[in-house]
């Protein structure tokens, strides 16, 4: 078997296993979200299905699939049906470029080279930003096509919010790009070789925080969950969706949660690298998994602790605080790097 054939087989395996793994993580992320929400609120959370209620998500999915698919009579039907897919597909594509272990080097599996990434893509970071921008369309179109005022307001809020936060996100990610000298996520992780103090979170602490805050907005979670805003807009852009179409939005949100956690750990927390070099014997995917778990926990913690911003406050934070901070961070990084070189 020649190397290209082996690579193709590996690729197919990775392309199947990776989404399945992510879906499993998502299923348990949903379960843990509810469990944590319960703990924070002095309740117990789900307990019935499976040990400790751990199979709750599968019960949810089964329920959602078996529910009637309601489509409002006066909605724009093709767009209404398309919107969940637009929200759903892009978040999966980002997975392809995130490295979950060492890439390149010599043969490490049955005499062949196994790269721990699905697609070795030069502009992985740009792909992530682009796909994030794509996913907004799902929300906006879903809100617009529902022919409901609540949905429309939710969709508009989501559109305005994500556009303004994506700018801050892009600028703060550009700081990392400059430090690594590459837009490839593989190179970015390689640039963070060493112990945990060699990772980018120390030199890029400002950018990292801005990226984290902007990512909460990108994920549509409290305090920036204005698109859904249950207490104001009932369910925002999701108001008219039911059954599995609603489920796809919901699912996309959690896949996005996992993917954004992966990106944050790749950019700032050394990706798949061990925090100390002596711990390198533990394989990379496990470290990445632990970092994702940590970040998901932080996102949930924030969500169940903080109250929601008002729409105009959210916009002013995005444009007046986060964007200037991220641009300043980019400038300082650029000056320091050119001074060092």
């Amino acid at each position, binding site marked *: 078997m020649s190397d290209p054939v082996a690579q193709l087989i590996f690729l197919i395996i990775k392309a199947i296993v990776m989404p399945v793994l992510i879906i499993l993580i998502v299923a348990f992320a949903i379960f843990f979200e509810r469990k944590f929400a319960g703990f924070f*609120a002095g309740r117990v959370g789900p307990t019935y299905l499976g040990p400790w209620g751990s199979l709750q998500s599968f019960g949810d999915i089964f329920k959602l699939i078996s529910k009637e698919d309601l489509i409002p009579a006066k909605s724009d039907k093709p767009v209404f049906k398309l919107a969940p897919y637009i929200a759903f597909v892009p978040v999966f594509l980002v997975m392809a470029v995130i490295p979950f272990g060492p890439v390149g080097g010599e043969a490490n599996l049955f005499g062949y080279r196994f790269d721990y990434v699905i697609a070795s893509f030069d502009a992985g970071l740009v792909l992530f930003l682009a796909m994030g921008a794509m996913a907004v369309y799902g929300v906006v179109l879903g809100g617009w096509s529902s022919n409901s005022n609540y949905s429309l307001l939710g969709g508009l809020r989501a559109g305005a919010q994500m556009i303004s936060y994506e700018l801050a996100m892009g600028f703060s990610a550009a700081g990392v790009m400059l430090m690594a000298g590459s837009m490839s996520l593989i190179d970015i992780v390689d640039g963070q070789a060493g112990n945990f103090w060699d990772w980018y979170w120390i030199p890029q602490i400002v950018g990292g925080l801005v990226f984290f805050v902007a990512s909460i907005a990108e994920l549509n979670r409290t*305090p920036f969950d204005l698109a859904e805003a249950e*207490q104001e807009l009932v369910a925002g852009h999701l108001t008219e969706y039911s059954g599995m179409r609603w489920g796809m939005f919901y699912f996309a949100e959690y896949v996005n949660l996992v993917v954004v956690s992966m990106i944050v750990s790749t950019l700032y927390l050394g990706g798949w690298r061990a925090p100390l070099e002596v711990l390198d014997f533990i394989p990379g995917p496990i470290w990445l998994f632990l970092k994702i778990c940590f970040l998901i926990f932080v996102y949930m913690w924030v969500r169940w602790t*903080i109250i*929601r*911003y008002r*729409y105009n406050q959210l916009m002013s934070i995005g444009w007046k605080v986060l964007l200037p901070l991220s641009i300043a961070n980019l400038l300082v990084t650029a000056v320091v790097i050119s001074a060092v070189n």
Partner: protein
Amino acid sequence: MSGTQDTQGLVPAAQALSRRPSLEELRERKDRTRRHLEPTGDVMTISMGPQHPSMHGVYRAVLDLDGEVILAVRPEIGNLHRGVEKLCEHRTYHQIIPLTDRLDYISGFAMNHGFCEAAEKLMGVEVPARGRYIRTMTHELCRISNHILWLGTSIMDLGTQTFFTICFRDREYVLDLFEMLTGARMTHSFARIGGVAKDLPDGFDHRCRKVIDFLPKRLAEYERIIKQNRIFLKRAKNVGIFTSEDCHAWRVTGPTLRAAGIARDLRKDEPYAAYPEVEFDVAVEYNADVYDRFLVRMKEMRESCKIIRQCLDKMPPGPFLAPDAAHSLPMKKNVLRDSAAMIQDFYQVFRGPQVPRGSVYRCVEAPKGEMGVYIRSEGGAKPARVRFSTPSFYHGQAVPALVEGEMVADMIAIFASVDVVLGDCDR
């Protein structure tokens, strides 16, 4: 503040100078915080309610929006109308008491109490001291349970659900006390004409003291969470300013009025039950915004704990029901032992109290505001007309004045901050 306030219920001048923004200043601030948009052609009309997550029941507000800014609100009530006032005309005075629970079901005893105070005034019944103290204590427990529920739901309306369940946990302690005292958790029907239904049960004193020792600590913790939360301050400060003159114009009372700097509290101004005999302060704040309404209610809960403690300390011995055979029921424990009590029981249950002709108006300080009861009697056991003037009705009608020019998200916060319960509003 007791003893220092003048006859109009205004705070003294020295205090006013240090903390209180003048009415002009508040007016100007209100004008500045509201957005004044010219209505254009692009008005979006949204029907918020009667089924909406944060309409606290079945309130319906038809909003005209320009973007996110509210241009006009048309409130619609009546979805929970049960004809309580008409039902009252076909019941004896004793039978009306359970109906009043269902007005403001969050604070049922306050409603019982208001009705009984009015009926007693009409009949000229004197409530014995123990009855008055038990009423005062129960009323304040009611206020605590109402305000804790309000705290949880209004913070939930600002966007987090965690706080909601935490507040419910603490409300549970108060509801357990109610269960012990009255046998019911929400609709207690505990007041009777001439007193209360039952005496304090064994061990109540001890349990009640435990709860009121423990609650202020929890409340301090909540207050710290609220005061230190920057997002909360941003959402609540200078939002929904409603000056004292607005309050007067719309007959808004209770904590909303007190947050506008007017120390109007019927417990002080027109005392009833055992309120003249206990020491407490009227909670007043001066900025008339959502944040100050929070502070007023937090203070009020602490004052309620103080009142309850004093009631328990001073709890006088003796009967808890007036020994007035013509108007009030006998004490239940005597009914099967004492023939006179048995006769009184039959008489009251089958014929009802014999009430002179006349009309009466009495109001009490319910947790949500002033709860007035008007009764017109043409003699006999049934009133000719009963009219409840409940706070939520007036607060609900003031919503357009409260929220026009604010944003949708603020409307939810403001609506929550004036505390409306639709059972109370629609009756």
